[in-house]
């Protein structure tokens, strides 16, 4: 089913912008002292006596660790045609377009990357990062350093177009920071290729915490915008159910591409964590071989459930129902039913009523959650059914069309109905929003390469 999610219509979160502005003002003091990384690259490096010893080739920062802001751990210095590493202890000051060293004697070493270390100019500048406040994927136009308590910290990131123009302009202007759109480093999730390949033992950053707090729709947008390595990194940083929620919000074409990219085992884990109806939609879009490979990686019962759903045509009731049902018998108490519902809290969007079946599995009633709330815990379901005049359960056969399902829902003003087989056994449930998805035209973002498919 196509999911033209409402997020496309949302205005950019205004509070996020406001938060960013406050961050900006509180950091004004820091801004006086910040140094632009873009202007430092290629800047002259002087020794203690003020003699020029070489050119700055790059800056090394430790990205993973306890620090809120990554500290510099050294420089790459180019002397003649040779590039070597200089630990940060040897650096006296870093100013606009010049670096001064503490010593006259240079202890030049070959640079070898330690885990979590990143070259700021080569790996971060001009690469994609996630701006957690603006909830978007951007490219770093400039990075800003600030001296804080004897350390040099990476404090912010600039994404403005003006900064790009400044960097294109004459050298004289290049060193001047233009911090109109500086993002605090604390609100940035970096996705450098080097970070992706660094060992998994590295510490979790606070940004991961913030990533997890984003809404599924926002994560879906980020996944769509990142390049492949970064996308895989982001996926691996999310828990399977968070990731699955985000995948449900993705554009179907983007999701198809993503599932093709990841290993079948990972794809299987992600799909298994999705709601069954969304999972089936995702599987339907893949080629036979790809689908079989993914199903083979799933636990047998999950694979069986999804394969069974796949046999229903996409645009018939069986093809877009969810199989997540809460079932109870007439002699269960309301309290027991409530606990059964609570156990399925991860499917909260898929449950709006409880299926009541007789001992033979035949459908008796479809008890709305409302009735669970309004009755005492010790009353049995049978009593509730006898007291209220609960209407006949609303049902359709698995081959009902979208239009028939919509008609039923509109006529009765129910928020969901049940799909039953020819023996009256419940198979699944269709909620009003599933019908909405089916009726609305595709409205996903249209990336240009897809225009000609």
């Amino acid at each position: 089913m196509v999911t033209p999610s409402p997020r496309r219509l949302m205005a950019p979160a205004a509070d996020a912008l406001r938060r960013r502005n406050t961050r900006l003002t509180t950091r004004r003091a820091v801004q006086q002292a910040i140094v632009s990384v873009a202007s430092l690259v290629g800047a002259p490096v002087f020794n203690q006596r003020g003699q020029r010893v070489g050119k700055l080739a790059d800056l090394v920062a430790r990205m993973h660790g306890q620090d809120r802001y990554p500290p510099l751990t050294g420089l790459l210095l180019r002397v003649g045609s040779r590039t070597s590493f200089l630990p940060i202890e040897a650096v006296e000051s870093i100013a606009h377009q010049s670096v001064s060293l503490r010593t006259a004697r240079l202890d030049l070493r070959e640079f070898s990357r330690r885990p979590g270390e990143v070259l700021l100019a080569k790996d971060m500048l001009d690469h994609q990062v996630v701006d957690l406040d603006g909830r978007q994927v951007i490219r770093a136009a400039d990075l800003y350093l600030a001296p804080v308590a004897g350390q040099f910290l990476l404090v912010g990131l600039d994404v403005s177009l003006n900064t790009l123009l400044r960097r294109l302009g004459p050298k004289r202007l290049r060193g001047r920071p233009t911090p109109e759109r500086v993002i605090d480093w604390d609100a940035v999730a970096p996705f450098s290729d080097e970070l992706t390949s660094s060992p998994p033992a590295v510490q979790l950053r606070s940004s991961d915490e913030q990533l997890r707090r984003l809404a599924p729709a926002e994560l879906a947008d980020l996944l769509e915008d990142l390049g492949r390595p970064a996308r895989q990194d982001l996926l691996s940083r999310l828990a399977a159910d968070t990731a699955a929620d985000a995948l449900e919000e993705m554009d179907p074409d983007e999701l198809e591409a993503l599932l093709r990219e990841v290993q079948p085992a990972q794809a299987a884990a992600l799909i298994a964590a999705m709601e069954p109806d969304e999972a089936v939609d995702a599987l339907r879009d893949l080629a036979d071989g790809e689908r079989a490979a993914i199903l083979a990686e799933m636990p047998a019962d999950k694979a069986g459930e999804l394969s069974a759903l796949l046999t229903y045509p996409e645009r018939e009731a069986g093809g877009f129902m969810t199989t997540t049902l809460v079932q109870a018998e007439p002699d269960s108490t309301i309290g027991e039913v409530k606990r059964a519902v609570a156990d399925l809290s991860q499917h909260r969007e898929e449950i709006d009523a409880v299926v009541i079946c007789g001992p033979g599995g035949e459908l008796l009633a479809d008890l709305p959650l409302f009735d669970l709330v309004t009755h005492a815990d010790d009353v049995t379901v049978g009593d509730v059914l006898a007291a209220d005049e609960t209407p006949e359960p609303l049902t359709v056969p698995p081959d009902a069309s979208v239009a028939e399902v919509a008609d039923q829902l509109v006529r009765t003003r129910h928020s969901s109905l049940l799909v039953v087989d020819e023996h009256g056994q419940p198979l699944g449930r269709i909620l009003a929003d599933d019908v909405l998805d089916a009726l609305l035209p595709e409205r996903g973002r249209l990336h240009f390469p897809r225009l000609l498919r």
Partner: protein
Amino acid sequence: MTRPDETTARPDEAAVTAQHEVVEDTASPPASGEHSVTGLALRRRTAAVIRRIPGGRRTLAYIAVAGPGLVAANAGNDAAGIATYSSAGSQYIYRTLFFMLLITIALVVVQEMAIRLGIFTGKGIAALIREQFSLRLTGLALFCVLLANTGLVVSEFAGIGAAFELLGVSRYWVIPPAAVLIWGLVLFGSYRYAERIFLILSLAFFAYPIAAILGHPDWTAVGSNLVIPHFLLTKGYLLLGVALIGTTVSPYMQFYAAAGVVDRGAGPANYRNARLDAVSGAVFACVISIMIIIATGATIGGRGPLSSAKEAAEALRPVAGSGAELLFAFGLLGASALAGAVVPLSSSYAISEAVGVERSVSRRFAEAPLFLGLFTLQTALGAAVALTPVNLISLLIGTQVLQGLVTPIVLIYILILTNRREVLGRHVNGPILRVVATVVVAAISVMSLLLLGQTVLGWFGLG
């Protein structure tokens, strides 16, 4: 321009059998319902048809990732392409055929490099350029793409103008509304439907291979010109040669091909299929181009430079008789309108990708100001230049010369990227490919420089 998946599905009986097939094979549901003819449904329907063909499953897997290469390469056969190939045929008869053979090799090499970058990095070419080169070099590359593509947009609107002039409508009445229409269709999201109409119109150019046979060309002359070089050392030949390169190896095709494979999630496992697609697409495009040259050479060869679209249309006379002009006009209109949207989008996409901002079509203007702004700018500029009172055919070929001059610069970037181990790991150009690719890029550069040199000398009266 062709799409294998759709052409297979187009006949009505194919669709019907597919519907029928669903009874046993429910994994490919029928496309009934409110909006049946979505691309997805069409693809599924095709899938059901293909399953009936022996060995069809493999074909399906191929089609699942194939396409971008084929589409990208065939997009070269647009208005400006037709004008340039027709001009080659009318001016030099078959003398450019061997040259076209060399261009085919160049296109195959270049398209393969482009999709390899897309497949093994998962990023578009513009993103790779930004990450791998300095910002200034990135700026240069993107400026070149923008320049070449704006030239192409001019030619697409000129093509629309020429098509309507064949039908007796002045271009001054047609180009402004056409520009507004294409702009609106893309911005308001209904382009995908219009695109199908344009595609069908552009199929008219498939009459060329038939015209080439029915036109009774001197096949021995064609053969000898194909295998033995018949270069001329004149300025006109050089100019046309650069235009042929420009129109066949347009920079936007490489960007499009890479973006296409990335967008489909094609990874290293799909490399063989995607390469097959890119190579066959490039060869197919060049075969069509060669057929256009043969058809034109056989009918109006030797008349000298083309002066109007009417003359070019004569090449289709063996197929369509007196309807040749109409057929040509339809084809020209379809191809121009199709490329008129794709080309400016391609450069907007590349630039937005490099800057790192929103680059999807159906967002509101305020959400993707750079992407939609650049698209608007190129469309407006293209239409404005196409309205200047110059000969449309000269304008068409002129834009292709501009393309030819810019192409080598973009190719150098692609060559450097595919030679870099840190970008492609063990999939960098092998030693043989490295030599071939370097020779290709060097040869194209030398031709462009020669033309540039001659033109500059000409300004001082020395040429």
